[in-house]
């Protein structure tokens, strides 16, 4: 047997640039050929404090971006950092989104999901795909990456907000339904979605209605990120979000008892997404 050389120790990188995406979201830019593909993630380490998985929001072989939403201790600590500060990085890890030249893609993003989805759109538009980029947010202030998206060729941006402060008022799934109603007959139509699990499940249901294949960015509690600890196993196949995912096909998830229902915490205890 040949044991592949395997080293999960960290690369130490200095933050090259920080972009403020919105009041709660920042993008950190690192000059390093990480070699990440759209949908993959990296582990970000703050020595002596904690380490968390973060999606790769952009990677052109020279630099890569991580976009972080401030929600708790780790993301807040990241928001405290300045240009030049050091962080540890390991990765890229996990599966990625697959698409071919000239395909028709609908990318449905919620929350910070717009960041990793931008990476998909960037590569897809370069490959001459036709991209519908759908972003759903609670309100205008929570939108992110819209300018970057608008700068992409053959990419159409669709926005919905719950309060109607910009774009269509309502849920992004309504917009998706519209688009698929018009264009699901197009061959090679694919839907990729990244956002809150409940939203992604709703997206999946719309796709089923039009028999359109869909892929999701699953997000489960991760520790190792490399398929060892079992923390991110999904019921009841036991598939691992970190190595069999994060990008997984909807048809494999649709029937799972866990999908859109519950998450597990660091102790492996279930937490239901909706009060039962």
């Amino acid at each position: 047997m040949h044991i592949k050389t395997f080293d999960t120790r960290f690369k130490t990188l200095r933050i090259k640039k920080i972009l403020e995406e919105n009041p709660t979201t920042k993008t950190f830019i690192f000059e390093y050929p990480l070699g990440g593909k759209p949908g993959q993630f990296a582990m970000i380490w703050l020595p002596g404090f904690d380490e968390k998985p973060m999606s790769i929001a952009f990677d052109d072989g020279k630099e890569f971006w991580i976009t972080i939403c401030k929600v708790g201790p780790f993301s807040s600590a990241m928001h405290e950092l300045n240009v030049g500060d050091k962080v540890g990085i390991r990765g890229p890890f996990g599966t990625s989104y697959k698409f071919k030249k000239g395909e028709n893609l609908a990318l449905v993003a919620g929350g910070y999901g717009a960041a990793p989805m931008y990476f998909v759109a960037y590569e897809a538009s370069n490959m001459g795909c036709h991209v519908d980029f759908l972003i759903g947010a609670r309100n205008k202030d929570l939108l992110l990456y819209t300018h970057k998206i608008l700068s992409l060729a053959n990419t159409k941006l669709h926005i919905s907000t719950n309060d109607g402060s910009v774009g269509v008022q309502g849920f992004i799934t309504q917009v998706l339904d519209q688009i698929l109603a018009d264009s699901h007959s197009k061959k090679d139509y694919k839907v990729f979605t990244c956002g809150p699990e409940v939203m992604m499940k709703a997206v999946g249901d719309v796709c089923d209605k039009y028999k359109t294949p869909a892929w999701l960015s699953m997000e489960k509690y991760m520790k190792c990120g490399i398929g060892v600890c079992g923390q991110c196993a999904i019921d009841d196949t036991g598939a691992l979000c970190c190595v069999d995912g994060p990008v997984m096909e909807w048809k494999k998830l649709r029937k799972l008892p866990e999908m859109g229902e519950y998450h597990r915490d660091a102790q492996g205890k279930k937490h239901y997404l909706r009060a039962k």
Partner: protein
Amino acid sequence: MANLEVKFCGVKFSNPTVLASGILGVTASSLKNVIRNGAGGVTTKSIWLEEHIGHKNPTMFGTEHYFVNAVGLSDAGMKKAAEETFPEYNKNKPAPIIANIVASSMEDFAKLTEEITKCDPDIIELNLGCPNVEDQHGKPFSCVAADAAKVTKLCRAMTKKPLIIKLTPNVSDIATVAKACAAEGADGFCAINTLYGMGIDINMRRPILTNKSGGLSGPGIKPSAVKAVYDIYKATKLPIVGTGGIMTGEDVLEIMMAGARLVGIGTMVNYRGVEGFGEIVKEMEKWCEENGVKDLEEIIGVAQ
């Protein structure tokens, strides 16, 4: 075709490979997935009486030579095991399951043994690698033969299930600890748990693990595991789950020749993925074919 079936404390395993505790062992679905990939049995992640918060990430790192972890025995507690893990694993149960339990007091160990027995595991494994809060030096139970023996005695009284003791290699004479446990009714052993380990990131000038130090496992510790199994077998002749650094079918055969009856495999997953279990079983079959071994009973302890 060689017969890879082995009996351990009367429990039948279709092959001697067993998932080691703490790897892919958080949920029943994950454990079942390991069996689907070829393992002969599984061990749960260490179960506490109450919920136990582990260490912060990074909780592990590895190189081609070894792996170091400090997960900190995070667990949701006995309640989850009883209501979720065991009921789900036991419905169309695919293979034997070893319940690994841990506590920081002798009293909790006894209580846990009683509780876990109700979950109907095939074997109960005591993880004595955890510091004894009652001991004035706070040394792990299995570092002190007398402590290990006392815990064994208390737990033995609580269950009729096969009871095995998981020992730490961080002692000067593991056989003495094993003998003390055997005298109090241990049915077998699992050896070894991890060695002491630490890694420092020289660019950050800080320990890699948030807990600073952790447990050393993987390819580099195989000789320590083989030595421990050899000594425990010689001293007690009791069945042993030989564990530590097993990466290939040849490694499984090596530690069995030292005296192991079952073989625990954990860190291998880091190098070969969960599919590694099936590949290892094939490697064993191939070697047995080539070497005319019809039944694994022929090789257990043969190097003694």
